[in-house]
């Protein structure tokens, strides 16, 4: 039987201090940015990345650190006590909400700051985090099913609407999980929303659901970047103007593509079932 638990953390306490003096600025910054990049890829906020990278660099002996993070970029520079310095950047092309890995990365950075992870062990820790899974993958489909079904009822739908939304939610989760490589993510969002809405409308047409509005709203909650918009507003109010504006633009463009997909399905419904 396959286990989906987290591989055990090494129990022997080790001190980061042992190799700090010999660690080069490039090596320290590279490891800190590996962790920062991991957090950003898992859906961490840019200000969290700035804080984490700064703390890790300090834990490994950096005298001065400057970090600047955006939703798709991390730039950092450090200076060591001996005067040597380094600056590096990371380009992040895709992110997703993975709270499990985010939490594990956070734990790793706490342990680094407590001096319990030597610099050369960071890579193996990151590998351990990347290979860990919180539960079997099929559960994610269940998440899509009850997420869409629950929201159909939350917005005023009936139990039948929830069933229709759940079926379409399964389809959307399936397509979302098996994104075709090389396809533009925005075009893919349009396709997923089109297929999801079409499935919902067909189910209602054949009597599985009663209110097509509620079924579609249930599905739309799986796709719409409303949360990204809320986060963007929060970043703006925090003073992270660049990050906030980037996220707003990103959320807005995604919302347009999702809306276009749903609109196409509604138009098709009007033509096929006038």
């Amino acid at each position, binding site marked *: 039987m396959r286990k989906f638990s987290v591989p055990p953390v090494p129990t022997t306490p080790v001190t980061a201090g042992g190799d700090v003096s010999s660690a080069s600025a490039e090596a320290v910054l590279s490891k800190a940015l590996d962790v920062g990049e991991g957090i950003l890829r898992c859906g961490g906020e840019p200000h969290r990345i700035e804080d984490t990278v700064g703390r890790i660099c300090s834990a490994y002996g950096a005298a001065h650190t400057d970090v600047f993070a955006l939703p798709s970029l991390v730039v950092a520079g450090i200076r060591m006590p001996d005067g040597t310095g380094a600056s590096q950047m990371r380009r992040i092309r895709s992110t997703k*909400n993975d*709270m499990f890995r985010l939490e594990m990365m956070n734990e790793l950075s706490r342990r680094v700051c407590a001096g319990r992870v030597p610099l050369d062990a960071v890579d193996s820790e990151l590998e351990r985090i990347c290979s860990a899974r919180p539960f079997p993958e099929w559960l994610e489909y269940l998440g899509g099913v*009850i997420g869409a079904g*629950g929201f159909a009822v939350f917005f*005023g739908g009936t139990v039948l609407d929830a069933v229709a939304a759940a079926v379409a939610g399964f389809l959307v989760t399936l397509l979302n999980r098996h994104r075709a490589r090389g396809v533009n993510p925005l075009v893919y969002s349009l396709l997923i929303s089109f297929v999801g809405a079409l499935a919902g409308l067909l189910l209602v047409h054949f009597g599985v659901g009663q209110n097509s509005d509620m079924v579609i709203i249930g599905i739309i909650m799986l796709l719409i970047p*409303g949360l990204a918009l*809320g986060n963007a507003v929060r970043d703006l109010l925090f003073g992270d103007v660049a990050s906030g504006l980037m996220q707003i633009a990103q959320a807005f463009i995604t919302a347009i593509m999702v809306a276009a997909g749903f609109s196409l399905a509604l138009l098709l419904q009007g033509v096929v079932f006038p």
Partner: protein
Amino acid sequence: MTASDWMKVIAGVVATLGFSILFRLRPRHWCFSALSALLGCIVLFLTDDAFDGLFLPNFLSALAVAAAAELFAVLLKAPSTVFLLTGVIVLVPGGMLFYGMRDLLVQHDAAGYASLYDALVICLGIGCGIISASFFRYLFHRVSLLIHKSRRKDV
């Protein structure tokens, strides 16, 4: 709150559990994200009846969710984002966005823009609620630090 409202609250909590799985939360955190969503839903329904407009109910609900998320983050030593992202999902104006889009599609422009404006107000309310909770946490942290320092001086 009516029986129908309670039904919606339960549906919202169930949906939040679904999103907890989709966002890959640790199973031991699912109940905490559901709790924060439950709190947000109850505050939303209660304040929706008590106040006019969309900003204040959504601001207070987001504040409640964010405060719960900050509390759970401290108790469980996890990033607050873990509980915030999932707890606040019930406040996301998916319905408004859908109606706005549909109205624009059938050329009911005024109704469409009104729905999209409402969605924007809700997002602003959520953002302000989250940031207020962060500010209170910072304030609480500073005050407890000052109290701790003054006690150490006394000793």
